[in-house]
């Protein structure tokens, strides 16, 4: 299906999120829509998939102008969107979720649905168990379910928002292969919204770049990465080299000591892990999604109870201390879901500042407002002290989260600190984190991005099936070797 978008305008208050955008997507091609945070990609895709109407402008499908009242409306004419946070019902089985969206009959034909589900999944090369509960699936598998569902409902245009975030390399390969097949043999129009140039290079036929609500360029792939970055940011960023000043592990000043730790997981349990982390050290946890790394991080924070083993913070046994007590000892944890777990949607930045400063019975709002303004300036947050956090862009939310971290941390535990951020925001985050390291904090982080782990970690722990392998000098380890460890291949 050919999609033609013309002169789309969408404003939110004073912000022109989409400022007269026109573009064309041809049937059977794979497109990437690129742009930094706040460039207007999400707004445009929400308009295209019926989540919100444009202020003005037109969408034309195969020559027919269309107006959508809802996402269901858009799907009825063939536009399906795969959201970054998949919209499914976790407490139900794969088959029930599949049937739910089709519910036109009082009594659904479960047998037929089951056959259709497995046929569709087979065609795409997905391995989905119809009777598995959705909350036992990985993000990658939930995406697969959603794709199967959208296609079985007749989607001819697929919009995918950051689909490779949080899924394993294998799942990414399967996803890309199925998208290629859909585009090239079934003439599906695929639109990928992404920050990851690597993915765009691997998958897409052409790219459209947005900046500040306008189209700043388009190109056929393959195109040099430098060209794309220039279109996205308006300037050429230097290629990032190795981070200077790697910290050599000496076995002194140990901050965190993990001994024989086992943590139960939903599917994979962490078994018998040993790890010492010292002052000023950055340790990256690599591995496929759900291999146990998150269990280790959360157990260190006191959010997950280990079944065996010990945790020591500067020699003190903290195994049985709860999260808040460990925070009191200088541990901090930032979750991947910035707006779901990290910040309180509905509260302003000032209110956040007041919330985390635990002095006295009463809040001094003026002092809190001043502190918030200081932090906004110091952390270059685009927003005001009275901005509610949910109105900030992802990058600015991450900045706010960093601004709320207490001073003098001993141990900083981070879950995907640069998730969904553009290159520039991600570098900013790391500058802040490395400054914390210089102040003596030990940092442990999870990232789905292997490059990020290699670039910033002094040491790396690779997880596979709940077992951890320590790599002392990641710069001397080849990508292939890491890949083998992550994939669980014995060398």
């Amino acid at each position, binding site marked *: 299906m050919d999609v033609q978008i013309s002169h789309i305008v969408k404003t939110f208050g004073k912000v022109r999120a989409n400022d007269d955008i026109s573009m064309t997507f041809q049937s059977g091609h794979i497109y990437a829509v690129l742009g930094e945070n706040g460039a207007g990609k999400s707004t445009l895709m929400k308009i295209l998939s019926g989540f919100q109407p444009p202020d003005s402008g037109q969408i034309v499908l195969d020559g027919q102008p269309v107006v959508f009242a809802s996402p269901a409306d858009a799907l009825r004419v063939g536009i399906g969107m795969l959201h970054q946070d998949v919209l499914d019902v976790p407490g139900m089985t794969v088959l029930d979720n599949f049937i739910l969206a089709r519910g036109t009959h009082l009594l659904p034909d479960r047998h037929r649905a089951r056959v259709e589900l497995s046929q569709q999944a087979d065609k795409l090369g997905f391995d989905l168990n119809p009777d598995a509960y959705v909350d036992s699936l990985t993000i990658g598998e939930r995406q697969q379910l959603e794709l199967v569902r959208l296609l079985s409902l007749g989607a001819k245009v697929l919009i995918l928002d950051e689909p490779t975030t949080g899924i394993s390399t294998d799942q990414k390969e399967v996803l890309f292969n199925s998208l290629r097949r859909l585009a090239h043999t079934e003439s599906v129009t695929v639109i990928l919204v992404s920050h990851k140039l690597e993915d765009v290079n691997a998958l897409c036929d052409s790219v459209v770049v947005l900046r500040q609500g306008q189209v700043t360029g388009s190109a056929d792939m393959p195109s040099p990465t430098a060209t794309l970055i220039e279109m996205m940011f308006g300037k050429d960023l230097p290629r990032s080299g190795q981070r200077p000043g790697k910290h050599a592990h000496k076995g002194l000043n140990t901050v965190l000591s993990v001994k024989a730790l086992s943590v139960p997981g939903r599917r994979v349990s962490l078994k018998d892990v040993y790890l010492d982390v010292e002052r000023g050290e950055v340790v990256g946890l690599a591995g496929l999604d759900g291999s146990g790394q998150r269990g280790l991080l959360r157990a260190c924070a006191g959010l997950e109870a280990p079944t065996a083993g010990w945790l020591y913070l500067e020699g003190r046994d903290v195994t049985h201390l709860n999260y808040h007590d460990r925070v009191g000892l200088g541990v901090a944890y930032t979750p991947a879901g910035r707006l779901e*777990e990290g910040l309180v*949607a509905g509260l302003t930045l000032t209110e956040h500042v*007041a919330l985390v400063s635990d002095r006295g019975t009463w809040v001094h709002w003026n002092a809190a407002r001043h502190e918030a303004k200081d932090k906004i300036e110091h952390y270059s947050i685009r927003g005001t002290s009275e901005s509610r956090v949910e109105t900030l862009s992802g990058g600015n939310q991450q900045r706010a989260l960093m601004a709320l971290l207490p001073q003098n941390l001993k141990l900083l535990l981070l879950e995907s600190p640069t998730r969904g951020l553009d290159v520039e925001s991600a570098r900013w985050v790391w500058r802040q984190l490395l400054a914390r390291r210089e102040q003596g904090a030990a940092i442990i982080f999870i990232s789905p991005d292997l490059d990020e782990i290699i670039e910033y970690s002094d040491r790396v722990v690779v997880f596979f099936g709940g077992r951890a392998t320590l790599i002392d000098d990641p710069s001397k380890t080849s990508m292939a070797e890491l890949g083998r460890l992550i994939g669980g291949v014995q060398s």
Partner: protein
Amino acid sequence: MTPLQGSANTSQHSNRWLAQALVLIVGLLIIVGGIVAVLLLSGKDPASALNLFLQGSLGDATQRSLVVMRGLPILLAASGLLLTFSAGLWNIGIEGQMMFGAIFATIIARSVGNDTSGWIALALELILAAIGGALWALVAGVLKTKGRVNEIFGGVALNFIASNIALYILDGPWKYGARQQTAPFNAPALLPLVPDSGALSLPGILIAIAGFVLVYLILKRSRWGLQLRAMGHSQRSAFLLGVRTERNVLLAMMACGALGGIGGALQILSPDPVSKGYLFPDSSGGIGFLALLVVLLANYQAAWVPLISLFFSLVPVGMLNLQTQIGLDPTLGRVFEEALVFIVVLANGAAARARHTMGEPD
């Protein structure tokens, strides 16, 4: 749910306040229209009915004092509910907590003799009422935090249990004569009245206002209030940002229960005609549920709660006059009150929906 606004957000705050005023006025107009229609259909003159209603509720000092005094328990319970609603809790058990407050107050009140100091008696009664309400709320809180029982289900069950405990006590140990009630309390156990003012009781009024002001300050100015509001928006985020959420659930429930308990005590400690001056099975009288409606009508905005509480006590007092004069059923007043809540909640929902469709920038 839209928990309370912080004071950090003044201009937005006053806008919301005005918006809520508009919604309330429009809702009220619709209701008045409905009442006029009903009156016309039943062949009665709306103008004279309105006159009778106003005469009956605000016509003289006694009626006005009745409105004020009956509004106090509603105000206290609604103030408590502001705390729990802010924390994202639906404390539907408030009704049972009020009953428990009344029962605990009775422990003192029924043993107060005619020569006891009224001030000491009253202080002890209200302290015990607060303890009783807080304890009953704590049960719901522990069921929620330790037993993973939703506070709504726990609250409904505890309301039944509270009223059955009251029935048992009033049929057994505290039974007075043949009726299910305690003996009428002696005068020192009751709220002292301002002479020649009808039913006005200064201590009662001061306690209710103090309760509301305390809650208002907690929510707008205190760290604890901010923590509760953060929990109301996202318990998970608040926890990770350092808020001890489980403890705050218990504290918010207990504070609400304590205020409700004091309200329950006022329900039985006023001299006739505001209350009966003794404990009886339905002493809480649905005031807790009414207070839930008050907070819903205020759209969780604290500043509206006193006014709406008074309005909710005005309607039944005024309806009483309509009943005696033109034989209009007084339950009609309740019907219209509840229709008003329905309309306003609907309007607030529609407003939220409109804000949502307007969307937010990415």
